[in-house]
């Protein structure tokens, strides 16, 4: 397994290299620069600024020096937030986004698995169609609609939960986690249903029924564990998706996470910040996919980690 892991990591290096290089040249070729503003800077000031951040060097030189620093783990200073380094900003934002993604994932699992089980007990009946239609609606409902809707109900009308923040008022993590989680809950519901129906058709379930076990017992003791396998395989890519896709929820709920930095950096032409966050997210996606592959095999001993 170690060998497999190492091989996959080695494969990731060229992928990341291409991602970094492409991003570097793309952001530098986009019109406008980090120091453009509505009030134009005097030419002398702009020259000094460009010199300070080495933007007056030829692009290939900037690229080489960026890559040189990157190899040493230095993401450089943020062009916009002048007293912050990209590393510091990522270290501030990532744990928050990670926590948000984790809670969202838990909510997605709780709602998704329950709905999936309910639907799978009587396939192609109302008990199946209703939760599955809701799940389809959940997949379709974007978080920029879901978030304000939840805020309107639970934050403003009922006044039960804070409408913004992260860790400042009790309960302020609930609405963002639900908003981010519901879309994934829908996916998980569909996966659970599929897995459960498959397992419920297996011989050992029939045996359990023949022995006179009640349906809830069969589901909990025997079917659930097998039926959840597809969900487990989905967790890795889903978690990467949650991390990368948290921007909307972070904006709606005023959460100082990585997603907001990422999108703002692109608008601000904060070159180093765009590169830093892109590298981080692409690394995470690659990693989660490897982990997900390993988990899949670990769950099913019939598979081996040969390639």
């Amino acid at each position, binding site marked *: 397994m170690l060998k497999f892991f190492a091989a996959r990591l080695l494969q990731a290096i060229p992928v990341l290299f291409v991602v970094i290089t492409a991003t570097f040249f793309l952001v530098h070729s986009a*019109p406008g620069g980090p120091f453009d503003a509505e009030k134009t800077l005097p030419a*002398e000031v702009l020259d000094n600024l460009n010199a300070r951040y080495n933007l007056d060097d030829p692009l290939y030189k900037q690229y080489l020096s960026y890559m040189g620093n990157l190899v040493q783990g230095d993401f450089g200073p943020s062009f916009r937030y002048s007293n912050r380094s990209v590393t510091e*900003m990522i270290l501030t934002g990532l744990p928050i986004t990670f926590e948000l993604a984790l809670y969202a994932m838990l909510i997605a699992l709780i709602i998704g698995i329950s709905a999936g089980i309910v639907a799978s007990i009587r396939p192609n009946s109302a008990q199946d169609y209703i939760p599955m239609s809701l799940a389809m609606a959940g997949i379709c409902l974007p978080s920029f609609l879901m978030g304000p809707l939840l805020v309107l109900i639970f934050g403003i009308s009922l006044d039960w939960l804070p409408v913004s923040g992260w860790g400042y*008022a009790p309960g302020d993590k609930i609405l963002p986690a639900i908003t981010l989680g519901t879309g994934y809950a829908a996916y998980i519901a*569909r996966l659970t249903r599929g897995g459960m129906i498959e397992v419920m058709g297996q011989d050992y379930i029939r045996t359990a029924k023949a022995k006179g076990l009640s349906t809830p017992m069969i589901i909990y003791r025997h079917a659930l564990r097998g039926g959840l396998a597809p969900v487990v395989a989905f967790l890795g890519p889903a978690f990467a998706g949650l991390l990368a896709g948290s921007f909307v929820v972070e904006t709606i709920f005023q959460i100082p996470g990585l997603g907001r930095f990422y999108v703002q950096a692109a*608008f601000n032409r904060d070159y180093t910040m765009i590169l830093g966050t892109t590298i981080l997210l692409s690394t995470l996606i690659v990693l989660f996919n490897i982990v997900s592959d390993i988990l899949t095999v*670990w*769950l*099913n001993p019939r598979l081996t980690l040969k390639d």
Partner: protein
Amino acid sequence: MRLHKQAPWPRRLFTEIHWIRNLDAQAVIKRTRSITRVCLVLSLIIIASCDLGPSNRATGAAQQILHLGNGTEPKDLDPHIVTGVTEHNIISALLEGLVTEHPKTLQPQPGVAASWSLSEDGTRYTFKLRDNAYWSNGDRVTADDFLWSWQRLLMPTLAGEYAYQLYPIVNAAAFNKGELNDFSQVGISAPDPQTLIIDLAYPTPYFLSLLSHFSTFPVHKDTVLAHGKKDERGTLWTRAENFVGNGPFVLEEWRLNYLIKVTKNPFYWDQESVALNEIRFYPIDNAQTEERMFRTGALHIASSIPADKIASYQQNHPEKISINPYLGTYYYRFNVTRGPLVDPRVRRALSLAIDRQILVDAITKGGQIPAFSFTPPNTQGYQPPSGILSYDVGLARQLLADAGFPNGKGFPTLELLYNTSDGHRRIAVAVQQMWKEALNITIALSNQDWKVFLDRAQSLDYDIARAGWIGDYADPNTFLDMFVTDGGNNQTGWSHPQYDQLIAKAATQADQSSRYKSFYKAEELLLIDSPIMPIYTYTRVQLMHPEVKGWLANILDHHPYKYVYIEPIAVNE
């Protein structure tokens, strides 16, 4: 009992998960059990706490803590390198210049300087610093602090974007541009720790108002030098744990993209008049989020409001919304270097064909004032020329016909460039329609990402471009000196020698009324030639809970915090 029925469709959806078919369920059982349990335990932890405490409004009133929505995350808190309103709002709590502003009239009030005098020819200011002005670490604030700080601002290697604020001082511009290396030749001197003498190159009636701008605030020399070189940008001296200031508040906490907390400064010379114990600034870049926070009492003041909520607030909560004139103009630039826009008659025709009243009533809806001049009316007593621009479709058609396009015949399709924003788009669509109806000409709309937009405007790669300008200080000069030949913010290609002369002349005039006459004549030229099309004068639309007192409206939207306090209230929301 069903044994093998056809695979249900959701599973067909995920057939790439090939191993479902080969599932050895027994082997999976043990391994998924632990995962299920972990999930259950963690979910219980989340659900555990759900008790809402009192709102920020309630605790704020009890403890004099002001909660403010504050736009975006500040770039930095170094007064010599930042430029934005967001940064201004925070820095003005942390630092204080020679003079401060009256909260209503903006007239200069004593700050670090207890008094000052001006020579008869209007070019030499002598400031007497108060003897009880201290930094937040207990050091005295001296004239040398200003000398050192202003040298820092003017150092070319610092690349301070607001260095030009000091250009009225003798040789300051030359030093900042690197033409002069000897700072002793710049007209700033500190003969003793409590005296600061400033020599101006020309009388500058608005010079005192420059001194309440954050770029001219002093910084603490030892702190700056402890964290880097004098001219180094972005060092750690502005962090909460390092910051030493001389303003009414000290920096207590700076959580990136979340909160900046400042608390009362016990060393501040006028700390007895400071009522607030704490101010919390929240960087909220989404107006919808900010309005929701305001509504639930998480904020006392929201800096922005979604345009579609203005009417509802005016109807249901008029005591919470205020709309005040703001020293800024929303306008369109014409590229006078190409196409039919080379002809001033065409430009003026376009400007005359716009019904600005409809734009502000039906589209912007924030009480904006239709603008027929570039300088907002009554800018420190200056009244811009009126009557040159108006809504006059007949004259517009006539001018267009004179320019060779009767009823828009033969007029090429021009492009109207604006940066992506729903507000700008709606105005552009309306203007496009008005031009079509009044002049029978076709305009193509083009929206661009902010940086692309700036790039194209600066390189004159446009026909018509949306723009906005907010005055740096309350004086017509901050508007009119933009359009001198090759001025960095001109960006229209327009050049008029007589205009340049008038602006240069105004700079040397000490007498306010003759100075304003020069500006008036210059603005007449600008409006007749129409390289720009003023649309409306900005307003500041703000949400504020009524218990906040001492937060007074003025055209710069400056609110010195030492006058602000919160009345005790019974919050029942």
